[in-house]
């Protein structure tokens, strides 16, 4: 069985695409393929119509991971962590501080955080920094691989709010991978359902939830537990 099997998917500018499926269905593998972090056997990935080299990729697409604590080098300060991508892309040193503090503020955190290390921050704060790092290179698209699953409910709501406002502000495209269907429905414009390496259904969020076509989509939707009043 292939981890990712003959996927044909288009992602449009300025949309939020939700990607759902059971564990092991290949969602994370697909994310890694889009980031060119693992090799592909067949097929091609086009960004705005063209195949891109690895060096150009970082200005097109970035990723936020599930576990906030392992996403950062525990020995670096937040300032250095945010400086790294900027310096790698030859950002002028004199504007560096200003840009870093601007990014920290953009995700709703106080500037005093810049001198701390990842172990001193909470999960929610770290995910905000991960988002700040992802937008620092001004990509067109960000992939969120179960990025809020490990957070508290109230913090999840804050991050969702942040994501929506950032998307509007910076005109971004999001690929949101999650297993919590209600969150995916809330955030996404379109949703792609994956099962065993294949995409079985793609539709707008509203249409998918009112009239799912594929049996697996129906199964997923039937497993949602709604608040019982």
């Amino acid at each position: 069985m292939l981890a990712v099997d003959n996927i044909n998917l288009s992602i449009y500018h300025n949309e939020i695409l939700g990607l759902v499926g059971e564990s092991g269905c290949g969602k994370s593998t697909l994310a890694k393929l889009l980031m060119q972090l693992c090799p592909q056997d067949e097929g091609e990935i086009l960004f705005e119509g063209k195949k891109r080299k690895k060096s150009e990729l970082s200005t097109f697409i970035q990723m936020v991971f599930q576990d906030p604590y392992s996403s950062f080098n525990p020995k670096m300060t937040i300032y250095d962590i945010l400086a790294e991508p900027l310096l790698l892309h030859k950002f002028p040193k004199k504007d560096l501080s200003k840009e870093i503090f601007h990014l920290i503020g953009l995700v709703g955190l106080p500037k005093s955080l810049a001198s701390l290390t990842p172990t001193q921050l909470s999960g929610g704060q770290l995910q905000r920094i991960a988002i700040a790092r992802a937008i620092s290179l001004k990509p067109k698209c960000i992939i969120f691989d179960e990025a809020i699953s490990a957070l508290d409910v109230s913090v999840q709501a804050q991050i969702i709010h942040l994501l929506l406002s950032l998307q509007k502000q910076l005109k971004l495209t999001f690929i949101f991978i999650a297993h919590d269907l209600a969150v995916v429905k809330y955030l996404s414009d379109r949703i792609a359902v994956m099962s065993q390496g294949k995409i079985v259904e793609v539709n707008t969020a509203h249409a998918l939830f009112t009239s799912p076509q594929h049996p697996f989509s129906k199964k997923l939707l039937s497993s949602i537990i709604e608040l019982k009043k």
Partner: protein
Amino acid sequence: MNDLLSVQNLSLSISKNGEKFFPVRDVSFSINPSEIIGIIGESASGKTLTTQAILQLLTPNIALESGRILFQNDDILQKNEKEMTAIRGKEIAYIPQNPHSSLNPTQKIGSQITEVLMRHLKVAKKESIALGIQALEKVKIPYPEKCFYLYPHELSGGMKQRVIIAMALALKPKIIIADEPTTALDVTLQKEILHLLKMVHIEHKIGILFITHDMAVASHLCDKILVMYAGEIIERGLTKDIINTPKHPYTKMLLEAVPTLDKDKYHNPLRVTAGTVPQLKQTHTICPFIDRCPKSMLICTKQKPLTFNQKSKVNCWLYDERNTTNRDQKPQKKLPEKEVAGSR
């Protein structure tokens, strides 16, 4: 009529660098075989520590500060390790959060079940095998005889959780404590496990203490709900009262922060509350929710709230009869939008 399990004024303390902190403060509740009690809380609410305290499974750095836990009118906090091993599993069963690490990967399922049965029920091996297969049948595992001779890694997550529930059931306990049993599993399995627990409760008359952070799950399964925040129970009552008419601002926040299918980012957005759960502190003289509460009053900064009886019991000054402000009106002040989003 005495309760089967009664936690009375339980307080736990943890010592760090010579200073004492209190992760659980004055928690009291009771469980009977006829009910499923749900404890709802986010991280650092003290829910896991409370359940570990019941079974005396706390790590050595956590100490009992005060309180009693009466099981069948016997204070089990005073029991020694030998007495506790007779209770754990046989009288009070525990279903932990992560099924993948709860089974010994080097032992076949069958031998793990029979080991437990033989130790507690003092039966011979043959009889324990028969009992074990019976237990697997009760949790609706397909082909239980085959499953008996498999290793844990040959089963899926859902199956493993069923096996653990089977092991919990096999000794016919009086209470089952389930600590977020569905969090580590796929969403498609959630409903099955919850249905199984409900069935176990009804058929075998076993009381269940169910820990979760998910209000929706609790609304389906539990009869009564306790809401914990930063180590205290801030609201408790019947499920329908808490879900339909939540009183405490934190309970309201929990219900509003979860995207349900009727919410929409354009037309019916989530209400977001700023701030995070507070860190461990040494003294707790005021309400723990004060820095995030949209309705905090002067008295909230002076004194810890007492418990007031509404439809549910709530620890909040808003419900003091002397409070003349309208509790259900919109929040009096706007919270600074610092942690939500913004540019400087």
